């Protein structure tokens, strides 16, 4: 039987190659473990999530001054709303509040529920905003504050409408692009 002789250089080469392969296998395993157990999943599209219609009235809402208009549109025939707002929102992380301008004037015949959404995350959501009321400040939950850092974000208002008599959600909703400035 012919014997194979392996010169010293070849042994070193094969050892090096083996070491590289082992390192590669370890690194690949580490990445796989991270991907399976530790990687944070991409947030799913949550804007389609609709609030239950039997929400409490928003406690941070205040009456709109000098708003005496009486809605005349028959609520049984579709809906009528007026949206009055600013597309600029500011968030104070230390106070855990959002400052905004959003009103549901008396002329509307629908209650509203407002969401502030940033990058598919619902930052905050109001209770029912009854016609004749407006919102200037909203408190933020701890987990919402934790998601944000100082800077500007492109977000949106998502507005849902509810029949004042039946509480039934309307099949029309509104989205409004906003700019959110986050400060400490």
């Amino acid at each position, binding site marked *: 039987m012919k014997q194979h002789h392996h010169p010293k250089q070849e042994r070193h080469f094969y050892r090096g190659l083996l070491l590289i392969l082992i390192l590669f296998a370890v690194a690949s395993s580490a990445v796989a473990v991270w991907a399976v157990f530790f990687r944070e999943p991409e947030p799913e599209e949550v804007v389609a999530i609709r609030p239950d219609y039997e929400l409490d009235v928003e406690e941070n809402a205040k009456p709109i001054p000098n708003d005496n208009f009486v809605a005349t549109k028959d609520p049984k025939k*579709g809906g009528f709303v*007026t949206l009055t707002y600013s597309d600029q929102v500011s968030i104070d992380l230390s106070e855990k509040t959002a400052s905004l301008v959003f009103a549901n004037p008396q002329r509307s015949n629908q209650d509203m529920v407002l969401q502030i959404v940033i990058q598919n995350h619902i930052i905050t959501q109001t209770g029912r905003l009854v016609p004749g009321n407006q919102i200037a400040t909203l408190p933020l939950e701890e987990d919402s504050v934790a998601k944000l850092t100082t800077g500007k974000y492109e977000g949106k208002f998502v507005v849902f409408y509810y029949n004042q008599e039946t509480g039934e959600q309307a*099949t*029309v909703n509104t989205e409004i692009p906003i700019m959110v400035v986050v400060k400490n």
Partner: protein
Amino acid sequence: MKKRTMALLLAMVMLLSTSVFAAGLGDHTGEVTATYVEGNDESPIVYSVDITWDELDFTYYEASAPVWDPVNHQYVSSGQAEGWAENDVAEIELINHSNTDILATYSYAANAGYESAEMTFASTQTYIGSAENGYQKTATNTVSPSGTLPEGTDNAVIGYITIQIAACPDVDPQMANDWVNAQQTSLHDFEYYNENYDVLLVESADEVPSGKRYVLEDELYELSGEFTAFNTYTAVILSGMDDGAELNYNYYRTLTAAESFKNNNIYTKP
């Protein structure tokens, strides 16, 4: 001794009283403060939009077998063809009270299980001008169902319509001020309205210079080439369903003074 002590005490009291009295007269210094509050360089934008929608309740009819007519010895239609009811069209109206232009975009999302039914809008986008000139602006859109409905559907919520209201995209500000909208007629004439909604008498190309943009329904146009009466000119669609498409118009009609409209900003399909 007693007298001296008393005199000394009295002198001290008098001296102190003088000091106190002296403190009540003379100069006093108090700080005067003032604060300069900067005013707004521009009036802030206030959005105020009315949205009105018809009842969005549609009916789908299944095909019915024909009915036998014993008089004429033939089968006749039961009357209702398969499909959506003929009058199943709902209106959505937006009125812009804001001090800026807005762009409304309409979309529909079906609920799970009802993807076979679709909603078709007459316009997927409507541009609505600012109310800064004192006139509110209105845009009316319609939505109607298409496709089919699963058998057994009974007064179910099959989907939701979303109306996005956004600031209007960049439009030539001169264009936005002078030319609010254009309404295309069947003869491809263009009637231009200024912000007071008077139809203008356009008698020369200078009044409608090339490079100006206007919005027609859901598309943003830009005129190119010289625009003169009874001439050929081209409008390039900058933004819309047919981006980059060129529309050639060969006729332009000069309008008379009698043809004027007030408060008319309703878009209709030609």
